[in-house]
């Protein structure tokens, strides 16, 4: 699998990372060399092997349904890029 420039652009869009044309060219080479290294794993016969998502076969612990958090809006918003009336502001979302 080798990524072409369009594929690099599409992934960058999915990941919301702006890329210039010259960056696309450089990234194409870098990503393809990493994917080339990853390729080594693909010939391995893993039929019947259960994928391992966690280090241990454990079950998630659960929380009791209690409200433990208090309003910390002022502290949380102290360093926010843009707030007004307690709301976080972003460029207009069109639906």
């Amino acid at each position: 699998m080798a990524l072409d420039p369009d594929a690099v652009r599409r992934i960058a869009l999915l990941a919301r990372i702006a890329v210039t044309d010259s960056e696309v060219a450089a990234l194409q080479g870098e990503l393809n060399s990493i994917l080339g290294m990853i390729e080594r794993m693909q010939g391995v016969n893993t039929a019947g092997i259960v994928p391992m998502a966690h280090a241990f076969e454990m079950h998630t612990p659960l929380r009791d349904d209690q409200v433990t958090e208090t309003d910390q809006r002022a502290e949380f918003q102290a360093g926010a890029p843009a707030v007004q009336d307690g709301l976080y502001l972003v460029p207009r979302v069109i639906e």
Partner: protein
Amino acid sequence: MSDPVPLGLVATARALAARELSSVELTGALLERIACANPVLNAFITVDPEVSLRQAAAADERIARGDAGPLTGVPVAHKDIFMARGWRTTCASRMLAGFVAPYDAHVIEQFDAAGAVNMGKLNMDEFAMGSSSESSFFGPVRNPWDITRVPGGSSGGSAAAVAAGLVPAATATDTGGSIRQPAALCGVSGLKPTYGLVSRYGMIAYASSLDQAGPIARNAEDLAVLMNLMAGHDRRDATSLARPAEDYRRDLQRTLKGLRVGLPRAYFADGMSPDVRAGVESAIAVLRRLGAEPVEVELPRVELALPAYYVIAPAEASSNLSRFDGVRYGHRAASYGDLADMYSRTRAEGFGPEVRRRILIGAFVLCHGYYDAYYLQAQRVRRLIAEDFASAFEQCDVIAGPTSPTVAFALGAHADDPLQMYLSDIYTIAPNLAGLPAMSIPCGFGVHGLPVGLQLVGNYFTEARMLGIAAAFQRETEWHLRAPAAMTP
């Protein structure tokens, strides 16, 4: 005033408890030393003398009152990946360059409760992605043994600060070798515990299923004391293991007689540089002299660890780092058009090249149509590697080998070739995939008088035994006592 710091954490704690010196005196002296050394080493991102001295004064009061804990007044510094309330917490990224943490990580709480003095936040690879601590937005960390060389990474600031005697111990994290490799390259000791022993709460996530916090210090006893503090169940982390507390010092005096040390053939094949091989082989000779029996073991699929890691870690990272979007905190691009543009510019500006690369790789391997071939295959290979270790541990009690294939390399050596950089973690990645504990201890010096590290990989929950092996080795050797000449106070 005598300086106990080069002797380590336990020695420092003892001197404080005996009131041979006060925490304020010691903290002040170390702050001066940091002020002196940091412009060169760049090991710290943030130092706040006022806060550190205030904590030291409080610790001195505690000692005077007689209710001191084991680490009261002991100066410790933290990798800048841990949220520490009121401290700027950056993960070495422009994305969080001005971010002040509004809460404490579990690890920070443990040190605070024990009365340790926070000496500041340590430099690292951006978002813990790297093996040289060069990807930091705040500039590269330099190796105290040779400032033209890297300290390793990602916990390069932690290893460099301990090696340079700026602090007796530091916290660090390890996703694919980020505690062990810098410990090896800086000639100090570091332990990555079994996955789940130390809570990840408040530790900025890189790859959640691999990330594990651990200590870097001068010797095995110090690591054991730090583990007693850092390990423990935390209900705020669903992957934190609920296990009874244990004393990680319990095997420090235990003999190595009858210990079966597994030597994986794959770890001793080509790839290791001759000076590293010489250091590791002499260390094995020491272990044998202490009564251990080397046995050859096979880890047939361990060579697949690197490709599997570079699917799993970027995949998790691409998702973990999506929260950095310029909406609620952190960097936001100065100029942008619509929402999509705001996101894309913010993230292109906020993340450095290596982080961007890993996010893109991670996004790709999770894409519809590629998920099975990349992500699921990597998870299956992950299980095969864990099974390899399980088989090996039927024949041995601990596995030994090199931590890093080479000694510290020059700054910029791998700047144009990410893959070469990745190979630096070739021996350290597999234990993360399996969730196993692993450590690095100094075992000699290679070319240019640079430290070589011995890696020990244990079975699950055998940290105390591993620390005992390291302690026995350190009673027999003095590699861990060496300090870089320029930095000797």
